[in-house]
């Protein structure tokens, strides 16, 4: 009764889409008909581009509009708003593209409350479904992964329905999503919980009528240090090679362990460039954070103006992580409106 390990050499990565663009790593030096990235910004800011008879605003004034007093962005900004992180492929980035994308994201966030959640928290998502009799489809599941950046940001929910594992990928900014509620806010030891597919079913089943778990006020986001055992005989990926912390692997044969050691990359913890690419840096950070602050003010104003939301109640105290953000700004009430579907 030997356990059969995955024969395929597939390796699970958090940024799998990078593999597909390996061919076009950067613009070839022989490529014609384009300009270098630094020149684009140079031209946008040149005073020569000012035209006397223009109806549009001067784009060159963008730099001057920056606030003199620079806010200190909180250190956990990238965990709370992972969709605002930049494109990991740096040569595909563009300042105006990101600015327009963020505008759309903020507008959407005014319409629907997109709560803070992490991989490992249990969510209930209601989306508009034209095929259902009630025109609504509600799905409850544990968040397995959060991928991509900007408007394309997606998260997968997993649950076991009638003995069958079901995973649904939701786009965070899809306009057909009517409601996202966090039933259980918590974090896990890993960023990607795809190993739950090979785990016993009790680790992924959540009843659809699950009630939201209220956290004690003033507590941070709880970390669930559960060690999920992997019991299935066929694994989707070679979990022993992935440096997973929330997983209890069965005893492995020597060859498998040796191969895992060969494939391991212990130097990644000191890979500063990789960390640099996944973060937002000083020039962009303040701009993005200012936009978020402005969005929060607009949201508060929108809530006051709109007649539907009469009273806004805070259902639970903000987690310690989010307190850091609110310290600088005014106290903005931000919660799930207590309405039916």
């Amino acid at each position, binding site marked *: 009764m030997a356990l059969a390990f995955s024969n395929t050499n597939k390796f699970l990565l958090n940024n799998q889409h990078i593999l597909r663009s390996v061919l076009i790593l950067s613009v070839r030096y022989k490529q014609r008909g384009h300009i270098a990235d630094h020149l684009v910004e140079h031209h946008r800011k040149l005073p020569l*581009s000012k035209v006397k008879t223009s109806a*549009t605003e001067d784009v060159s004034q963008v730099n001057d509009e920056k606030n003199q007093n620079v806010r200190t962005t909180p250190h956990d900004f990238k965990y709370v708003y992972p969709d605002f992180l930049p494109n990991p492929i740096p040569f595909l980035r*563009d300042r105006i*593209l990101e600015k327009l994308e963020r505008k*759309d994201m903020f507008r959407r966030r005014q*319409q629907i409350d997109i709560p803070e959640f992490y991989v490992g928290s249990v969510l209930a998502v209601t989306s*508009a479904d034209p095929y259902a009799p009630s025109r609504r489809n509600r799905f409850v599941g544990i968040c397995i992964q959060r991928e991509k950046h900007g408007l394309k940001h997606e998260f997968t929910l997993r649950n076991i329905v009638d003995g069958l594992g079901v995973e649904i990928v939701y786009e965070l900014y*899809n306009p057909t999503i009517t409601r996202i509620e966090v039933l259980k806010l918590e974090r896990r030891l890993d960023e990607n919980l795809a190993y739950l597919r090979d785990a016993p079913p009790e680790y992924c089943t959540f009843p659809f009528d699950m009630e939201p778990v209220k956290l004690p006020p003033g507590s941070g986001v709880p970390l669930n240090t559960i060690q999920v055992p992997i019991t299935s005989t066929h694994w989707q990926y070679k979990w022993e090679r992935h440096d997973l912390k929330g997983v209890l692997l069965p005893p492995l044969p020597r060859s498998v362990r040796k191969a895992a050691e060969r494939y391991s990359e212990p130097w990644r913890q000191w890979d500063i460039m990789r960390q640099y690419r996944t973060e937002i840096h000083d020039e962009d950070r303040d701009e993005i954070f200012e936009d978020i602050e402005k969005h929060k003010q607009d949201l508060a104003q929108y809530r006051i103006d709109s007649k539907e939301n009469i009273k806004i109640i805070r259902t639970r105290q903000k987690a310690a992580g989010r307190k850091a953000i609110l310290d600088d700004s005014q106290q903005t009430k931000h919660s799930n409106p207590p309405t039916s579907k």
Partner: protein
Amino acid sequence: MNRALQTISTRLFTRPVLPSSLGILPNAGINFIPCAWIRQHKLTDQQMRLRYKKLHWHKFYNDKWVQRRGGGWDEKMTPENQTFMQEVVYETYTNKESPLKDGPWKHGEYTTNPETIRTGVLGLKLGTLPQWDKKGRKFHVTLVQIIDNHVVNYTPPEMINFRTLFTTRPLRRDLHGKVGMLVVGALSSDPRKFTRAYNGLFEQAGIPPKRKLTRFFVTPNSVIKPGTPLYATHFRCGDYVDVQARSIDFGFQGVMRRYGFRGGPSDEYGATKFHRKRGTVGSGRKHKILPGTRMPGLMGNKLVMMKGLKVWRINTKYNVLYLMGPAVPGPNHGYMRIQDSSLYERKQKLTKDNHPPFPTYYPQDGKILDEELFSDDIYHFDQPTLTLDDVQIAPLTTRRTTAKTAQKKK
């Protein structure tokens, strides 16, 4: 035997396919017209080269053109002098007398019978974003920014020699002798980077020299005075547009990536030395390789035209167009020529009353545009969430009409 089958199957499956990545709901019963078409050249690259042998097909520039790049040497100026020179340059162009002081040229009238062709615009590809339409369907959109475009020059049709002009981009035969040439430039820059001859091209128009120039062939009624700026509002939301750009350079590529050949099996099935090859190269009878056989070679980095792209949104603050589709040719920060669509169905919809701003969009002092303009079908994020209560779905039919029952009915 195997190899013969290989070549047959590769020929069957290498026909270019219409892009169907538009996120269409299969059973929704809603009509969604695919709009992006790639023009298939009737002549292959080799045939084009043979035809234009005399006109230096392989050269990217013409010897008769003026030399562009200049400067670039260290003039050994003190920093104060450098700042002074920069200020001088900026001041000359802000204080320059623009020829538009006398007002623009007389506007022509938009006519459909003798067709009118307006100018195009030079844009820069920024990247792609997802957008949603009012029925909740997702599609991808390319952003194109139009960074200080100005009209530089106009030559009337009488002064153009149509026989020798069209080497890289042939013009329709019925337009020969009837269209004038407008030169449009993008990205103003410092005149110290260019030669005096090149800077002289822009003196009449009173604009700083441009980094990139193109030609657009327009009918004489849609003439624009040199020196007028062109904006993103030259197009309207909901209009269709042709885009021409130089595609991404893939370098020397094999036959599988270049033409989509199937290749051979992996080593697992015992294939010896046949994994990514082309297979046979000729037939048994003719003792030669036919010209135009597809083989490995340089892929990309050539002009590609994409027709019928819809303009979904326009941002007037940054002069950005949102064009349909993620598959617009070119890398990021690549130049694109954008023109009104030449597709028959799209041209039919334009009439004397319903046409885009002619000859171009002129900003009026009293009227200030909204920052963002949307087409009718797109969902913009200020609207409330889409509850698809109005969507009607075609009911499932239990009866199926087969050939036999159809015949019986007849």
